[in-house]
Every structure is written in C-alpha cells, then in structure tokens.
C-alpha cells in the first residue's frame, strides 16, 4: 500500500532520525514531498509512505508512540480552469509532472493524483489559476 500524509513533529522530537527507522526497521519506502521546520522547532513533513500493510501499520504505530502526529493529506491543489490561459509557464516548475501541456492541442491539464502539494505552481502561475484548498 502507498499513502500520502502529513507528519507533525513537536519540538521535543524534531531532531530524532525518524525516517531512518521507518526505512531500516520497517522496510518502508519513503518519498519526502515537502519538509519544513519552523522557528518554534516544530517539524512538518509531507510524505508518501509505501510498503506491506503490516509494516505500514507498525511504522505508523512507531511514529505515534514517539509523539509524532499523523494526519491524512487533505490539502489539495485546485486548477481554476477559467483563469488558466494555457500559457505553459507552470509545466517546468511542477516537479511531479502533474501540470501537463498537450503538444497537439497546446492545452494545459492538471492531474490531481500526481500532485505532491509542493505549492510551487501557486506563485509560478502568472494568472493565478492554481489555488490551495484545505
């Protein structure tokens, strides 16, 4: 199984190597989509975690047992089509290939399932056609 989620690290645990343990001890595939430590030393990690169902559950138990809060990824990026001019500026900024320019029709399309919610497109879009929703 594979799932995108948001991990919240309270300041007391921010400096511990959780990802190392998830990989080494629980045999999980970790894809870090976004990582941030704020000035209050709270950590926020947007990750995709993949692996066997039992490993997945054990890995999450391990995180929660150490004080890490686990939230489903509910934030999503919305493509406001009527604002989109189909210019294409976003296509080289999106790291996940979620914004695609069809070379025949020369129209932009957005694949929400490929989106990793890095939010780069929001400010890269000149006509502000990309929005984040929670």
């Amino acid at each position, binding site marked *: 199984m594979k799932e995108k989620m948001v991990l919240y690290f309270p300041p007391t645990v921010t400096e511990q190597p959780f990802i190392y343990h998830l990989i080494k001890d629980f045999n999980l595939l970790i894809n870090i989509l976004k990582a941030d430590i704020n000035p209050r030393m709270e950590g926020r990690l947007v990750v995709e975690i993949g692996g066997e169902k039992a490993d997945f559950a054990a890995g999450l138990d391990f995180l929660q047992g150490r004080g890490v809060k686990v939230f489903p990824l509910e934030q999503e990026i919305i493509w406001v089509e009527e604002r989109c001019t189909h210019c294409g500026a976003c296509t080289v900024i999106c790291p996940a290939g979620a914004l695609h320019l069809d070379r025949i029709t020369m129209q932009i399309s957005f694949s929400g399932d490929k989106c990793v919610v890095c939010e780069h497109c929001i*400010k890269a879009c000149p006509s502000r056609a990309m929005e984040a929703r929670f």
Partner: protein
Amino acid sequence: MVKKTIEEINAKIKAGKAVVVTAEELIPMVKEQGIKETARNVDVVTTGTFGPMCSSGAFFNLGHPKPRIKMAKVLLNGVEAYTGVAAVDVYLGATQIPETDPANKNFPGEFNYGGGHVLEDLVKGKEVLLEATAYGTDCYPRKKLEKMIRLDELPQAILFNPRNAYQNYNVAVNLSDRTLYTYMGILKPNMGNANYSTSGQLSPLFNDPYYRVTGPGTKIFLGGGVGFVSWYGTQHNPGAPRDAHGVPTAPAGTLAVIGDLKQMSPRWLRGVSYLGYGVSLMVGLGVPIPVIDEDMIRCAAVSDGEIFASVVDYSESYPQGLGEVLTTVSYAELRSGEINVNGKKVPAAPLSSYYRARQIAQILKEWVMDGKFLLTTPVFNIPLAGGISDYQGLVFSDADPARGCHNA
C-alpha cells in the same frame, strides 16, 4: 504571377466569397498545392498571439466632476496613473504596482495586483476606486475626488500599447547556480528550464517578416475588439539577424497598437504576476494578412521548424547587456517541450499561450469571412532597416524588392 489588390480582396470579403485561412492552416495547404496555386486560392491569412506584453496601458478621460479638477495624482484601486496630460486625462501602465506593494523587499515578491489587473477589472465591468488629488487652480478649483468608476461610465478609454507583437524573442535560460525570477518567468539554476514567449508560426510579424502589409493603419484584432497598428513599436529593431527565409533569429520588429478599451474583453486582456519581477498584461492580438501576391504566401507559409530563436543566459548576458547568444533553436523544438543547448537537454516552457493564439487567428478568420471585417492598407511601411522610415513620403511600396521572401 498572382497579384491581388487589397480593394479586390475587400470586394470578395463583402461578397462573402473570400477564402480565409489561419497561418497554421496555410502550412499544409502550401505543401499540397504549392505557392502559386495557394496564392490564387487564398485571399487572407489570419495570425494571432496571446502573451505578456509589458509595454501596454490605457489612456482614460475620467470625466469632470462639479466643480472641475486638474488631477495631479490619481490612484485606480491603489495603482498610480500618470497625470502629466490634460486635467482629467490619465495613462495607466500595465506594469505599475501599488505604492503599498512590498515589491521585492521580501524576495521574491509576489506582485499580486497592478496596472494590468486594473485594466482587466475594468474590462470585466467591475467597479474600480478612483482617488484623485489636485493643487487647485482658478479654472479647476477642486482638490480631492474619491469615487467608484466603471468602464462604461467613462467618456473615453483607449488602450494604447507602445510595444506589442514582438517579432521573435529570446529563449531565456539560467547558467548560474541560483534560481532567477525574471520577466521570462522562473529560471531554475544550471539550465533547469528554458522559457520562450512567442506563438511562432502563428505570430503576426513572423508571417509578414518585411512588414509589407502590416503598418500604421492596419486594422487588427486587439484585446477582443477591433484596433489598429498606430506606429512601429518602441525598440523596433528590423536590422536583427535574419535567416535564409528572411525571418529574424533575435528580437526584431515591434508594433505600437491602439484600440477602444470599451470593446475589449477580459478573455483577451489579462493581468498577470511574475514572481520576483512584477505585474504585466497578457494581450490578445491578431493581424490579417492580405494575400497580395505569391511572395506573401511564401512568407506566411513559414512553419515552426523554419523559425529560430536565440537562447540567452539571464544570469549574466541579458542583465549585463553582453548580447551573447548560446545557440539558436527552432520553434518546433521549443514546442516539443525540450531543446538541446550545447549538448544539454533542457525542458522548454512557453509564457505565451499558443492555444489562445490559435483561437485569435480563428476568431479573426470568422470576422473576415462574415464580411464585417475589411482589410486596410498601411498608410506607410514601417522601417525595414537603419531606423529610418519612408513615412515622410507616405509611400506604400509593396513592390519594394527588399521586402520579399525571395530567398525562401
């Protein structure tokens, strides 16, 4: 030799018999039928472009209140308009940002609102806050005015863009190791991407490379309404290097254009924001090309594979004005989404919308076919080289041998 006058073409348009195709549709026709046959069959070729054009803006006559005012400082939704003309006339430029905008103080600035957005709001029919102050004179005593205005209430609103429809433009890359925020968009380090901004084979001046039929007085599609070429544009540089087809391989000719803002639509005038750079206006512009002879077809049949653009480093060469060109690439390569710069594969992205450019050429084609859009002859030819125009003699010299695509 096929020869047609603009009067003959207009007679066909009025009779509903003109054959009109877009510059894109023309390409396979010429491949199939050849130049001579296509020149005989086709009367008008329509072009289009829809991209950020910073040198844009509008003159407004804001109308006199009672008592009258000679406006010295004017804000429209917080964006300053130039007042150094008559009492209630102002010019709002597309790239003007509000005085309250932090600009690049917190780099890269977001530039969420500016002149281009005010223009878009006005053509949307939205109310815009006008704040005017004045020093007061005997003839214009009022010193302050604050009211909501709508475009349809203003006595006059004239879009006047001193530089639009660039004939070719740079492909921007970044050779440095930090991200750059430019008017050519976000440029990732170490040539992470290449951004370009013309509609290639659909772009007006690529189809009339020697400005034979495009000049002051040419009636065009502008912002969704009807406009005119008013002059050659600022930074008009017809002497840029040209390839064997006569097509410039670097930024070359430009057009100054004018039109009634009240006719225009937010679909074809769009305020845009470039991270770390500023605001601008995306302008939709289309020029009809009368097929006056075979050479006109030869020029207009140019395809993306035959048009080349210069790749320029925006970390050093462009900002320092060094004029170095890394390589040239074709628009066919650019449109494929990947170019090769000195052995490195670089993802390419457009800043101008080919999709919208195609729609403009299509709309203009329908206008002409409907018989409601007649073609005009330029009052004079815009300069071809050396910055000297033949406008003083007001000569329209379509026979000028220097203006043909003879090498193609």
